[in-house]
């Protein structure tokens, strides 16, 4: 299909990616399931979390980073679980040290445990600190077009509005806001969080977003590896449908076979 060549590659912080599916590495049964699901997803960017090393208990417990073919992936350390600017900035700095100077991070500063909604005010401040410290920041935010634009203005390399609360699987709850964010943007817009199944991913891509970051929708599926494959296809399908431009909606039918030449 030569038409698909019309697509521009996804470029984040100067690096080009073929896959528009970014996946988290949490909540899988074990490192092997993580590895297989990542493989099936075709993802090139994967998120990781930074946590205390388990002292004394299982020093030889396989580390996720040892279990994955790291040369295949761009690692995206995530400030998951951070509720303050300080915690988020500290996490990013530790990640940079841990990964030998790696600057690409995902910033999330949460505001509320029940919804896990981002705290927009603290997110803006943390983003500024990280950008000033030469981090390439992909930022998790609400589906608020004004905040999204401000995060772009600060210098974030990608803005990632939620579709629905993290881990909720509710799908795109506010497609018009996502659309507005996309239309306003000069950096990649990725839907992050809230996708539940393949159709949700396709809808997000049909809106024109540049990619989707998900974790629970794959890891919490009955068959995570199969769902990873389904998400890959949904994202490719949704992207192609966006590029193809859908037909206009009409209230009533419109025959697709010619009326002329009927013999009955």
């Amino acid at each position: 299909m030569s038409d698909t060549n019309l697509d521009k590659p996804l470029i984040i912080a100067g690096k080009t990616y073929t896959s528009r599916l970014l996946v988290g590495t949490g909540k899988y049964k074990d490192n092997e399931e993580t590895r297989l699901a990542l493989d099936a997803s075709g993802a090139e960017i994967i998120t990781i979390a930074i946590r205390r090393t388990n002292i004394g208990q299982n020093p030889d417990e396989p580390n996720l980073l040892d279990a994955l073919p790291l040369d295949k992936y761009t690692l995206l350390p995530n400030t998951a679980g951070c509720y303050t600017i300080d915690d988020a900035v500290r996490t990013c700095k530790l990640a940079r040290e841990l990964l030998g100077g790696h600057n690409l991070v995902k910033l999330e500063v949460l505001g509320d445990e029940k919804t896990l909604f981002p705290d927009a005010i603290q997110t803006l401040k943390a983003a500024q600190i990280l950008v000033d410290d030469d981090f390439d920041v992909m930022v998790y935010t609400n589906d608020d077009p004004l905040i999204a634009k401000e995060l772009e203005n600060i210098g974030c390399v990608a803005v990632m509005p939620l579709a629905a609360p993290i881990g909720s699987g509710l799908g795109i709850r506010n497609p018009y806001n996502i659309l507005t964010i996309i239309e306003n943007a000069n950096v990649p817009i990725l839907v992050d969080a809230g996708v539940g199944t393949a159709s949700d991913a396709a809808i997000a891509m049909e809106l024109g977003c540049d990619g989707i970051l998900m974790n629970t929708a794959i890891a919490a599926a009955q068959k995570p590896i199969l769902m990873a494959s389904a998400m890959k296809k949904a994202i490719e399908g949704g992207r192609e449908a966006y590029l193809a431009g859908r037909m206009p909606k009409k209230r009533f039918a419109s025959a697709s076979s010619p009326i002329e030449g009927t013999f009955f």
Partner: protein
Amino acid sequence: MSQSNKNTAFLGKTHIMNIVLNGQDKQIDDDTNIEQLLTSLDLNNKRLAVEINQEIIPRSDFATFTLSESDKVEIVQAIGGGSCDHKN
């Protein structure tokens, strides 16, 4: 070196000092550097990062950075995570 801490003890001629390691109290020998601490924890060749009192210590300084009484030490690593592992 702190001399009068309530937990100061002798083990041979070595002083023992108290640090907080990943949120837990721990006693170590005086003059322990980060590399020695990691070795004692079987973590020496692991992919990790170390923070002392919220300052990141580069790996290249592990052998020369000596811990002090009451230091808060954080040893962290990468684990699987997405957008929401707040409940661990």
